[in-house]
């Protein structure tokens, strides 16, 4: 099951690269991305939106962290339907990794599937250590704390 889930996420990632850089995420995909068992390597799932002034800061920090740590996987989820400017912003900040965006389901349902304890504040960052550990952090993240949560 673990391998299947991992392959599914890998497939989603490939899809993200192929389909205009973004995947419109549904509830089951959201639950899969949020499942610690699905991540066998240190992984960051960064939730952001165009309307969030603090997200840019986080995305730049995470992009740099990923560049300096080849083991680290970085995924982004725009908590809104994707607009052209979203790709431009991620490109400008050199944010690598699969890109997801909210699909057509109710935003509340997608948010709940991603993180039931999350109340909508942005940025929200899910940190997986690759061994079943998961930490959810709201706001601008502290690099040292992020490294610790990721086991880097």
């Amino acid at each position: 099951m673990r391998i299947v889930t991992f392959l599914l996420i890998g497939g989603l990632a490939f899809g993200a690269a192929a389909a205009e850089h973004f995947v419109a995420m549904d509830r089951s995909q959201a639950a899969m991305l949020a499942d610690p068992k699905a991540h066998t390597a240190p992984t960051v799932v960064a939730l952001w939106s165009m309307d969030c002034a603090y997200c840019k800061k986080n995305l730049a920090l995470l992009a740099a962290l990923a560049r300096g740590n080849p083991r680290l996987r970085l995924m982004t989820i725009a908590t809104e339907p994707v607009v052209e400017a979203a790709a431009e912003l991620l490109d400008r900040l050199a944010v690598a990794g699969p890109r997801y965006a909210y699909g057509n389901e109710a935003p509340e349902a997608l948010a709940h599937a991603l993180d039931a304890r999350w109340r909508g504040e942005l940025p929200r960052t899910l940190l997986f250590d690759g061994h079943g550990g998961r930490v959810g952090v709201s706001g601008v993240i502290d690099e040292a704390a992020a490294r610790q949560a990721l086991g880097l």
Partner: protein
Amino acid sequence: MLDNIEATARPRRRGTPGWGTLLARRAVLAAMAVATTFAAAVELPPPGRSHDGATARSELGASAAFAPDGTLHAVVKRGEQVLLYRSADAGTSWGAPVVVNATPEPISADGENRPKIAFAADGVVLVSWTRPLARRFSGEIRLARGAGDGHFAAPITVHRDQSEITHRFESLMVASDGRVVVAWIDKRDLEAATAAGQDYRGTALYAAVSGDGGRTFQPERKVADHSCECCRIAAAADADGTPLFFWRQVFEANERDHALASLGPDGAPAAVERATFDHWRIDACPHHGPGLAVGADGTRHAVWFSERDGEGRVFYGRLRSGAVEGQRPLGGEGAAHADVAAAGDRVAVVWKEFDGERTRLRAEIVEDGGRRFHALELAASAGATDQPRLLTRNGDFFAFWHTEAEGLRGYALN
């Protein structure tokens, strides 16, 4: 007749079944020859979502207010226009809409953004909205005044500052002396500080006052430095009728609590007062603004979202000078976007709450000075939902909720 044209000509789109119900109701109303003074509606897409390629943005942001004659009026975005709907039965059925801005322009109506509606002292309807501009986070505050016969005068921009920066998240109210007051989040001070290489915490709150029922506005004035960037601003008439604003403020160093300020008769803002004390330290956008209502005895009833002891909750409390009385969380862990209203010595709160499958509309009526609570479950919706609002009419409470599935609806709190 106009209703009938609207009902039969508008295509029904998949994914908005509630609108079909509304259309059917309109057709029934038309058959009953319900008179309307509104002009002909134009063909516009059904409410809920604007489509952008394969995905859709939820733009359900709507507002409602009771007119002096007791009819419920609601404003909602359709494409690049604000539409005004009217209901004679407090939000069960609606007549054909009226276009507020004849010339289309971009309109914000997602999350904390929405068109607003109020009635001027002469009974004329006022509608405001934020018009986003090309630059990221930029916008200007627009206001249109009803011109009779279902028409509106061309919208004006409320503020004098014309720079392409943030003027967004406006709130609209009419004070007891008839002044029309608009307050909004404004980044001119942040921009100036950034240009000078200085730090500036959060953004600022500005307000403009109109002494002629919203036809023109005096130059805007700063109410507060250091407001939070993107939470809605609550407005209410204080016990003496003066405009009172309640918003999320970034206190040093980064505590996102709330503040209060009133506007004097000359439009000058009073000193900013800290109003909540949860000490939520975070550099983030909560996207979750507060609500405020002032009771007949002058008690300031508030609802707000904050984090305490690591847990984000929606709270109710009474704002006393320098303290909060009776603070308590509303609903369960998923309670969100509460609103509050007061009618005489009764107070009501409404909020929405996602239960894992559906979003529930829940409410409480508080009586006997807070000693008695009456909990209500008003509705549940399976799709995307807007934030609910609470209204009063002749001492009765009504929740107003725009959902993708059910459309615009009013719910009596009985």
